[in-house]
């Protein structure tokens, strides 16, 4: 009788490594290899242009902001879906997954149609001086849209398993509603919120399909880094330049995700310790 469900450590570990290697490591090393062919000076020339830096700033800045917004909105949505029973709750629950299921280009075109100056919402916002489509705000909106399900779906099971005992204990000890939330619930949810944040962030940084339609790709203004990569390949067949830019994004994303992981571990230290 084996104690493990899967047959043998060697077989399962070998399989895991082969899949990870083939699907993840191999393409990534090819990317780095191609980028290296440029040499340091060529690489620098590719990356340190005003256009590239502007796009990187937009990609990462908007993604960080979008993931933060997702965390707040996602917490609210997950909270309502878990804690309250109301008509069409299950329909709302299913709607959360829509950004997952929708082809990103479809989402992008739909958002653009809605928020364009002549669109259903855009035409109403324009008199207020708010332009969404073809601006950085549009980029942010698309990123928020695609990242939201990650936060909601990671939070839901944790919220469901959270015992009402803890809130009641805080209540009988004299804590106000705000103190119950900030001192008991939030610290308990923080590790999960950070996991959701990391997922939404990763998705937003890499998002292409839905963003390029609503952003309008205006030079220095609303070009995102993935768009530049596609541009280099599409119009100039510049694979090395594209790889150089890709490598920068890869490194930056990795650093960001690691930082979030470290933070997540720290906020969860009470459960990890033994």
């Amino acid at each position, binding site marked *: 009788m084996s104690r493990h469900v899967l047959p043998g450590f060697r077989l399962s570990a070998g399989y895991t490594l082969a899949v990870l290697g083939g699907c993840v490591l191999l393409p990534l090393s090819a990317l780095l290899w191609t980028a290296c062919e440029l040499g340091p000076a060529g690489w620098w020339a590719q990356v340190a242009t005003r256009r590239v830096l502007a796009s990187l700033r937009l990609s990462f800045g908007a993604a960080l902001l979008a993931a933060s917004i997702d965390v707040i909105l996602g917490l609210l949505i997950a909270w309502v879906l878990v804690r309250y029973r109301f008509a069409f709750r299950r329909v709302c629950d299913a709607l959360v997954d829509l950004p997952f299921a929708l082809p990103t280009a479809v989402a992008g075109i739909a958002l653009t149609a809605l928020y364009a100056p002549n669109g259903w919402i855009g035409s109403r916002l324009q008199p207020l001086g708010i332009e969404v489509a073809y601006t950085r705000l549009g980029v942010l909106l698309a990123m928020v849209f695609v990242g939201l399900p990650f936060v909601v779906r990671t939070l839901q099971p944790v919220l469901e398993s959270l*015992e009402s*005992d*803890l809130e*009641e*204990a*805080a*209540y*009988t*000890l*004299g*804590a*106000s509603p705000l*103190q119950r939330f900030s*001192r*008991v619930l939030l*610290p*308990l949810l923080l590790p999960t919120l950070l996991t959701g944040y990391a997922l939404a962030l990763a998705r937003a940084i890499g998002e292409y399909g839905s963003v390029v339609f609503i952003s309008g790709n205006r030079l220095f203004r609303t070009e995102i880094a993935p768009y530049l990569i596609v541009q280099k390949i599409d119009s100039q067949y510049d694979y090395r330049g594209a790889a150089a830019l890709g490598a920068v994004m890869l490194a930056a994303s990795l650093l960001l995700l690691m930082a979030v992981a470290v933070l997540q571990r720290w906020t969860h230290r*009470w*459960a990890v*310790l*033994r």
Partner: protein
Amino acid sequence: MGIEISRLRRQFGSFIALDDVSLDIADGEFVAVLGPSGSGKTSLLRILAGLDQPDLGSVQRDGQDLLALDARRRGVGLVFQHYALFPHMTVAQNVAFGLRVRPWRLRPKASAIKASVEALLHRVELDAFASRYPAQLSGGQRQRVALARALAIEPRLLLLDEPFGALDAQVRVNLRRWLREFHRSLGITTLFVTHDQDEALEMADRVVVMNRGRIEQIGTPEQIYHQPATAFVSRFIARGQPLPGEVAGSSLHVLGHAWQLDGFSSTDIHTVAVHVRPEHIVPATRHGEGLAACLLSLRHVAGTVRAGLQVEGMDEPLEAEWSERDWSRHSVGVGEPIDVHFQSLSVFGMDREGRVRARTDCHPPYSASPIAIGPWRRLGA
């Protein structure tokens, strides 16, 4: 003075959790609410803590309406069955919580909080664990942290929900004694809820037995055990086992025997319940005397013998309990016939609504010579 609970009623849909519950608790008293699950004892506790409101009834503390006070301001310490410690806080932070969340004006200074946390942790013998997280503690330690946390707010009433429910037997027994002593030294009015008879009888000054949302009996552990007021209390506390029996005039008829019954008026009586306790079923000293039965099983548990008996004329087997010493005089094997006596029977007379109208004990006369050696004793065996 103390706490006066009067005519509480709480209903969840069609389920009645509390039905006309009244109870007075004196200052400094240690009261156990005992009942099977679903008897309403936790509902009572939650109402006292302010986590739930009754549909009807009132709770007064020293003449003040307790129900009108928000749970935050009640000064009631509640210890949850599964402790409900905040897992992301250390032991010291958990204990300090109730003081730290106080409004700014009432909040003690950080140094004062620190001092009282230290004093409390010392009291519950957890000085060395102040900076541990709950996940690093054993069940008994968590229980004591939960107690210290509840006591930190200096409550005037301490409520314990199944305080030992989640602990293993050895820890439970130790902690019981410890808590009893702790209460004595503290003198704080304490109400605890349990489904464990031993726990309630051993620890409490007074026991409240609940069943189906109603209070069946309130009394000292001795009263509850020796004079159960209802058939339920007799079954639940004294392990009374129902016998088929009837009362006709002033005699009790059980399994073909008739005994004189004193102090039992059968006016207004609709049904009669006759109970016998395991320790009141004794082996007859002479063969052919008493009731014929068959020994179904025999288990030896810590100095006592528990026997399963099939008494002639009954469908259900009865359980008898004898001391190991008494039983050693007999040598009846499993599956063999044995004659038994009932030393004492409890008789309850109920009216049409099921309320107990009359109760008495019946001691069937039995001719026993105290030094008799059973007829089945095989000399030299």
